[in-house]
């Protein structure tokens, strides 16, 4: 699968931003397997970009295509299929069901399109150090624990592109490295691409392309 970003600019951004951005207003083609690092300072539209790529918002000009599918043409059902099979995401704002346990949160995603058996969930939780938190309601877990849960959740389905929006904002470097390693392993299994948007460069993400937003 390939991701085409053509002349995309949020409707609420001024045209002038195109001149200093390597993404807004440009034509880009990302192929499966590429590791793309997007470095973006606050307010440059990082979350907007991830939301556009995941189809959560449509306030942009230009086109975003997965192969030949313009995602602006997809309806809710069409997106459901894409999100189930082709794109996975780690949101900056986490988005867990607060009243469900961490395990329930993970199962809700895993059952949608199981790529791994349930045992794998436990194994991943152990690797990221949240195994003891699996039976806790999400709302009483720390942000760091929640963020690790969200990372595991993103890895429980098949995908061609894994979108990351500041995935380590609540993690210390050691935990971030563990999480990154897990994500790289899982992407490798699927021969998938990672689109990693963050405030700054991170050494432990072996990017093949580096773009400034």
């Amino acid at each position, binding site marked *: 699968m390939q991701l085409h970003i053509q002349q995309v600019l949020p409707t609420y951004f001024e045209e002038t931003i195109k001149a200093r951005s390597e993404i807004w207003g440009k034509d880009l083609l990302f192929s499966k397997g590429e590791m793309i690092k997007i470095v973006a300072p606050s307010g440059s539209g990082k979350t907007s970009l991830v939301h556009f790529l995941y189809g*959560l918002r449509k306030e942009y000009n230009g086109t975003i295509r997965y192969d030949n599918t313009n995602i602006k043409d997809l309806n*809710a*059902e069409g997106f*459901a*299929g*894409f*999100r*189930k099979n082709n794109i996975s995401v780690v949101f900056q704002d986490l*988005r867990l*069901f607060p*009243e*469900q346990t961490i395990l*329930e949160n993970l*199962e*809700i*995603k895993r*059952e*949608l*399109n*199981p790529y791994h058996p349930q045992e794998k969930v436990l194994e991943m939780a152990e690797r990221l150090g949240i195994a003891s938190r699996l039976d806790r309601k999400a709302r009483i877990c720390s942000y760091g624990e929640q963020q690790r849960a969200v990372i595991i959740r993103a890895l429980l*389905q098949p995908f061609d592109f894994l979108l990351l929006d500041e995935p380590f904002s609540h993690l210390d470097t050691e935990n971030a490295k563990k999480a990154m390693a897990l994500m790289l392993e899982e992407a490798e299994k699927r021969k998938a691409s990672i689109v990693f948007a963050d405030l700054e460069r991170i050494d432990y993400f072996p990017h093949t392309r580096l773009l400034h937003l």
Partner: protein
Amino acid sequence: MALNYKTIKPLLLTGSNATSRAFSYIGLTVGILLLLCSVQMFINIQQLLKKNDIRKNGFEYISISKMVTNANMGKDNRFTTADLNELKAQPFIDGAAPLLPNEFKVVAGAGSMIPFSSDIFIEALDNEFIDTVPPNFTWQEGQQSIPVIFSSDMLEMYNVFAPSYDLPQMSPATASNVNLSLRCEGALGEMSFQANIVAFSDRVSSVLVPENFLAWANKKLEGIDSVKGSRVFIKTKDANDEKLLRFLDEKGYRVNKERAALGRSRALLQGIISGLGLFGLLVVLLALMLFSFYLQLVVARSKDNLQLLITLGYSPSWLSKNLAKRFVPVYIIVVLIALSVTQLIQWGFHHFVMYDRPELSSYIHPSVAIIAAVLAIASIIANYGMIKRLLHKIA
């Protein structure tokens, strides 16, 4: 692997309003019950009245005459050809035939067996309109013996008065064996015939002779080619049809009183029952509306969770289908309760109010069950459509 609704079940219906749900269920049950009972009672009335109809080949025959009032007393109140054509042209009238009278004087005697003679009137009617027409009810010119169809009512009346006049009472079989003599006197002459009663009619209160005989005799004795009748028989599918009764009222035609009264009371009863049915339908609609508010509340309360499920890749259609499925048993139970209570009411009505009259059944009519099934299916579909719309709105 098929998706499991159980996993996401706790995410929905959070904080659902039990009172509002209970009220909508109760309302729905009461509404459907009212509707089903109305339909069943409507059918009961139809069945009760059908039994009293005098029918032939699925048609009813009623006689009408022009109302004689002070205003039209001196005028000719017989039916003209135009009147007949107008009657026949009505969509609710399948045929009309006049009861043609004799224009000459007829004296009937019973010979030596019963010393009795009286002026009588004879009439003729299209055979199709007579309830009992034996094959020998025919006459040809030159035939001395006239077949006669006698009114059952008139025989009964004779039997009531016969003892007072020292006359023998007669059964229909005996009456059929009596040789009657008919002396017909007109301006152009006088003739005598033999007459035999060949059948008794419950429908026509008259002495009927074959049409061609009456036409021949009117011409022969009075020189009259065509006569007009003051009574007309109407063939209709429903003698209690409101449109028919209204038309007859408008024209000033008088119908058999008992029958008309029956038709009018049926119209009134059916009006009341239809009103009740409409009220039931209204209650059903209100209950469904209440239920839709409850559903909107459920979706609004679970909005964040539903939105996140859709964000994670859950299909809005799958979610709507599964959410709607939760209410299928509710609708089925509600309709089954309403149907059972209707059955109980019908049994009670038949047994205690109608004392097991054979024209009614203790069981509900199949159409009531069909309506119940249609209501259940329609509610389920409406419910599904509404949930789907709500979910696509938040997707």
